[in-house]
């Protein structure tokens, strides 16, 4: 492994008496953009706050650029953070906001202002330098917060759901800019989000967090194609992956994975994405199902089906050839598109 940018070594953290992080191990390479993804309350923000030193660890160590900073106060860790609320100083102009970190570190005023201007230019908010945060739109505030994080060249950037307060169009635009900015600056970034699209688009690697534990760390491709658990499989992807007992009604076509007779035991689950389901008329081969409801999203339609035993299955079909509500259909999937999980633990099954 190349130079470590940030390492969490068995880090636990607690809020009041409840533990919110359970011995989290995480390594971020220098210059890597790692996205921490998880549902609300999974402890994503706590990961950032522990790295920043705003929250103490109960066990474990935090290393930044190879340096153990576990006992250091936030200001000594050389990290910068973009808060979800942006945390801009309302009484300072944009230029003063960006230069704040430099000025409290006794950088000469002229130098600080010049570097603030450069940072503002790099995120495209140089025209706003004399304004106050109250006069800015959400997207503009976001840029100012980014410029403030950039101006000091820290070892690690921590972004706490920075795009969640923006409307959809702006979020897509800022997402692309954030990625481009990272490619240009090459900084080590930890980006927290609950938005799976954002994670898949932005990340070099994704760490999926659930109830204070890491479920899986991997590239977006690995997370998508080889989810390590049924939780990851269902959390990433919309609508969520279908999950049915392996000895249930759906028997995939083709060659099953080698090893154990998957469909014979009741302790395994089959997962397959809505995209993998083929829907045919009632006279075709496959498992019979009825159509509960159909959501049309432009060219695509999502058919919410119900099998004879009551199990729900979602299928993506072309909007032009969508089945009618209440229609009887047959569905089929291929082994190649199926993920197998242990039913109890949810871990991925490997023969």
């Amino acid at each position, binding site marked *: 492994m190349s130079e470590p940018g940030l390492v969490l070594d068995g880090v636990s953290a607690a809020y009041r008496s409840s533990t919110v992080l359970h011995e989290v191990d995480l390594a971020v390479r220098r210059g890597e953009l790692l996205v921490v993804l998880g549902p609300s309350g999974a402890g994503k923000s706590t990961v950032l706050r522990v790295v920043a030193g*705003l929250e103490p660890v109960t066990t474990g160590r935090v290393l930044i650029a190879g340096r153990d900073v576990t006992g250091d106060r*936030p*200001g000594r860790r050389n990290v910068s*953070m973009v808060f979800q609320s942006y*945390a801009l*100083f309302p009484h300072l102009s944009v230029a003063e906001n960006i230069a*704040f970190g430099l000025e*409290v*570190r006794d950088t000469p005023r002229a130098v600080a202002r010049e570097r603030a201007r450069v940072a503002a230019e790099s995120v495209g908010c140089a025209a706003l330098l004399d304004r106050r945060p109250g006069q800015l739109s959400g997207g503009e505030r976001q840029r100012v917060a980014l410029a403030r994080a950039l101006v000091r060249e820290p070892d690690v950037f921590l972004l706490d759901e920075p795009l969640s307060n923006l409307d959809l169009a702006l979020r897509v635009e800022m997402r692309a800019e954030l990625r481009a900015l990272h490619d240009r600056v090459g900084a080590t970034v930890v980006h927290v989000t609950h938005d799976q699209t954002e994670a898949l688009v932005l990340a070099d690697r994704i760490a999926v967090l659930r109830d204070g534990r890491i479920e899986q760390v991997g590239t977006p491709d690995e997370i998508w194609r080889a989810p390590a658990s049924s939780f990851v499989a269902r959390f990433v992807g919309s609508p969520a992956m279908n999950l049915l007992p392996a000895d249930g009604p759906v028997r995939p076509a083709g060659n099953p994975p080698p090893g154990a007779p998957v469909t014979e035991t009741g302790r395994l689950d089959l997962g397959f994405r809505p995209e993998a389901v083929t829907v045919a008329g009632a006279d075709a081969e496959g498992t019979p199902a009825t159509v509960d409801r159909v959501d049309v999203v432009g060219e695509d339609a999502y058919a919410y089906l119900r099998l004879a035993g009551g199990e729900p299955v979602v299928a993506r079909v072309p909007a032009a050839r969508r089945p009618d509500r209440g229609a009887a259909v047959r569905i089929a999937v291929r082994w190649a598109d199926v993920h197998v999980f242990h039913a109890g633990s949810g871990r991925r099954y490997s023969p």
Partner: protein
Amino acid sequence: MTRPDTRSRRQLALMLAPYLVGLVALVLLPAVVTLALAFTEYDLLRPPTWVGLDNFTALVDDPVFRVSLTNSLVFGLVAVPLRVLLALGLALLLHRRALGVGSARSAAVLPTAVPEIAYGLLWLWLLNPLYGPINQLLRTGGENGLTALGRTPPQWLTDPTDARAAIILMSLFTMGETFVVLLAARRALPRDVYEMAALEDATGWDVFRRITLPLMAPVLALLAVRDLIQSLHFSFVPAFVVTDGGPPPYATTYLSLFVYRNAFEYLRYGYAAAVTLVMILLTVAAVLVQWRLVRRYRAFYGV
């Protein structure tokens, strides 16, 4: 829901009536009468006689009036900033949750809750030059009734300068309301802004100077003006109870005490009314400043 109809408007008027009656009968009418009396000579026994601007020309020539005006202004300009600073210091010290903070907050507010006369009598004892605890404390380590530095301890009730200082000292501890407002204002400031400052390794002084103070400035300014207006009134009881306007020559005679003496001891009601008018003008000036501040901060923060 649209504009209130006739019936609910009548109900609203009915509910407002007691307040309006009280305001007019107990505040506005007496104020107008006082205003009118300022141009008369009136001893509360015989009917008032019109004297035009005589009372005001007399005021300009009255050395006691000039002394009390100066005393009031100096008191306001010294005591008010000190009070606000003390309240701010305590608010910043006590805004966090910690052991004993609740009791400390109560202690800070307590002196404000003591009835004024009792508070005055308490200080009469505290300030006693011979037996008072303050001077006993100052004399510790010294000899022959002097302080440890060999100086005479302050003669709180007999020396003009010391007496003025005593009145200011007394007024400092009644800043409970100011403290409560500042405590609330500090607790309303966003936490993430302070976390941001911690990440930038800002020192306590930098945080105070660059964040806390500017963010609290609107509240501080308003409280200072409010206290300035109030200082015309809360100098009355200490001066009346503790120093009796003295020591000579009129060292702690403030405008309020001056008015009281003239109206009810010397029975020069018209003359007192003229001084009241001066106090009202001072108050109006302060309120104008307050308005300007509010407008400025509104524009500043875009609220």
